[in-house]
């Protein structure tokens, strides 16, 4: 095991982790406003990627720089629509019901989009050259480098968002919905906007992942990585997502590079699950999450 390989694994892991973190950030956004963990986040990313593919190459033939923003607008509407039509009716129901609803949504989308637009892998070209990049002696994929960079920028942007006026509204809503109502905050609108923003973020991550591995149903498997990141970072902390993303990405890439030759492959998919279990055992509210206090 030489140093170059380790460094290469580390750099790739960090950037891949940042790309995962973007999916998790959408989840945190929803959790922070409405206290619901959205298990459909992976499917939303997949939906966004399908929408971009349909707008760009396969369907309308728009140039990619127009297709992505347009898809984000469409997905904003989809996200807000999901909140309006499904989640709002579940207010006051036990949390197990709400989780199951988002899981049902995930399954539904996973069937709907490949079913309607075809299950074969679709190429999504966002203009990143395939030729790998050499940083000194390190070999890094351009798509992952750019994807990680864009994700980092977007996550930092969402930290800014939480410190803006609207972000303060969202934090107030997550703290106490009734109290927010009484001071004149439009709680429903805040939650709907959070869903819309989260779906738009999911679209970007879907596009970035679609550019590296093609667009098909397997994009929805991002869910389990995003869950691991969101839980490790604490479900209500964007900074936590950033750090946990890097940790999960590093762990995964190291496991693939070091453990796979020993046990014979497949560790990539189990790392996220192990991280979830260990986090829940050691520190259930995550690295940066607020400890949950419940009233009887």
């Amino acid at each position, binding site marked *: 095991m030489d140093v170059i390989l380790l460094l290469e694994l580390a750099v790739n892991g960090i950037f891949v982790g940042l790309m995962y973190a973007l999916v998790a950030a959408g989840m945190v956004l929803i959790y922070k406003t409405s206290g619901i963990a959205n298990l459909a986040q992976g499917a939303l990313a997949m939906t966004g990627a399908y929408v971009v593919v349909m707008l760009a190459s396969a369907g309308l033939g728009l140039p990619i720089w127009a297709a992505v923003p347009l898809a984000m607008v469409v997905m904003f509407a989809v996200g807000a629509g999901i909140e309006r039509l499904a989640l709002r009716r579940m207010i006051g129901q036990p949390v197990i019901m709400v989780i199951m609803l988002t899981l*049902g949504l995930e399954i*539904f989308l996973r069937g709907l989009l490949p079913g309607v637009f075809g299950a074969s892998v679709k190429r999504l070209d966002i203009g990143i050259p395939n030729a790998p990049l050499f940083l000194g002696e390190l070999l890094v994929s351009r798509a992952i480098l750019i994807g990680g960079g864009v994700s980092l920028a977007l996550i930092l942007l969402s930290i800014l968002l939480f410190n803006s006026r609207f972000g303060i509204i969202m934090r107030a809503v997550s703290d106490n919905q009734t109290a927010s109502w009484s001071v004149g905050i439009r709680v429903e609108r805040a939650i709907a906007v959070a869903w819309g923003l989260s779906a738009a973020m999911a679209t970007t991550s879907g596009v970035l992942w679609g550019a590296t591995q093609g667009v098909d149903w397997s994009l929805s498997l991002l869910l*389990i990585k995003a869950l691991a990141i969101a839980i490790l970072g604490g479900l209500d902390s964007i900074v936590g997502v950033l750090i946990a993303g890097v940790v999960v990405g590093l762990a995964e890439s190291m496991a693939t590079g070091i453990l796979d030759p020993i046990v014979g492959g497949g*560790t990539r998919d189990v790392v996220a699950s192990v991280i*979830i*279990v260990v986090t829940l055992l050691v520190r259930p509210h995550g690295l940066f999450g607020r400890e949950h206090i419940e009233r*009887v």
Partner: protein
Amino acid sequence: MFFRRAGISHTRYRDERQIWPLPIDRYTVFLIAALLLAAPFLIDRLYVVSYLLPLIIWSTAALGLNLLMGGAGQIHLGYGAVIGIGAYSSVHMLRAGVPFELAMIGGGLAAAAIGSIFGAVAMRVKGLYLAMATLAMQYIVDFVIIQFPAISGGTQASLPVPPTSFLGFPVEGDRVPYYVALVICGIVTLFMLNVRRTAFGRALAAVREKDYAAAIIGVDPFRFKLLAFWVSSFIGGLTGAVLSVCYYRTIAPEQFHLDLSIQLVAMVIVGGLGSVLGVFFGVALILFAPILLNQAVALLADQFGMNLPMDLRAHLPLMLYGGLIMGFLLIEPLGLAKIRNNIRNYFLVWPFRHSRQ
């Protein structure tokens, strides 16, 4: 049918606490039990093997999951893995020469042991986090089964079930597996019907409603959640043994993936959380709706020349599961059992709409 409560007045508390206080319900249950027993002699073997047998086995599994989700209010997204543990451990015991009756219980115990370990992890957290923990369990168990050839059965990753016998009858052909599954399902159903009337069942209900409140009235939530995990994983493991011996005959890791867990969760929710009868409805709907849908699609193609693309047809079941879960949660969260109850209560006092139940 409409006046079946007429003339029935219970004079002792015991009579009213029966599982089926109305004679007509008892007769219906006996009739259904008799029909199920006679089914292999009455209907075509194709229907028994490919419709009735899966219905019975999946119902047993869903009953186990329902105890956890409906009875104790704990979400479990890794029940497919629990069934897988039971299936693999019992088949390995069978291959080592253990009789089927013991291997079945052994499979249940193995699943219960591993299931409760994850349950204990999950006890620190609840609701949302519990969902994640059990989801993680599903992936970890999948990984272990696939990665260790000693478990999954070598390079083909499939494990044939050796010939075996149950209480002296060789489990082969069509009828004996059916009766084995039916017996197990009957036992589990009776257990589930009665468990709600015991101290254990009531403690679970207390934990389900609010665990802190349960702790205040002296019900230890940790203990009863763990017990619920144990019992339900045991039933899952038992079903895994029945599933592999009576239905699959050759087991492979992908039979116990996340899809199975999601299917079971969908069955429980569609059927109605906490209802025994509802489970059977839910299983029937989730198992048979895709088949009916496919036939409807084929009929459309034949009669009206409406050919749906292959991809769409292949993904219709997934859409159906997702749509059913969402639809029931939004419109009737208590599932098919509640719909059936509404209809039944309407007709119990028909034509007097406002009569007391």
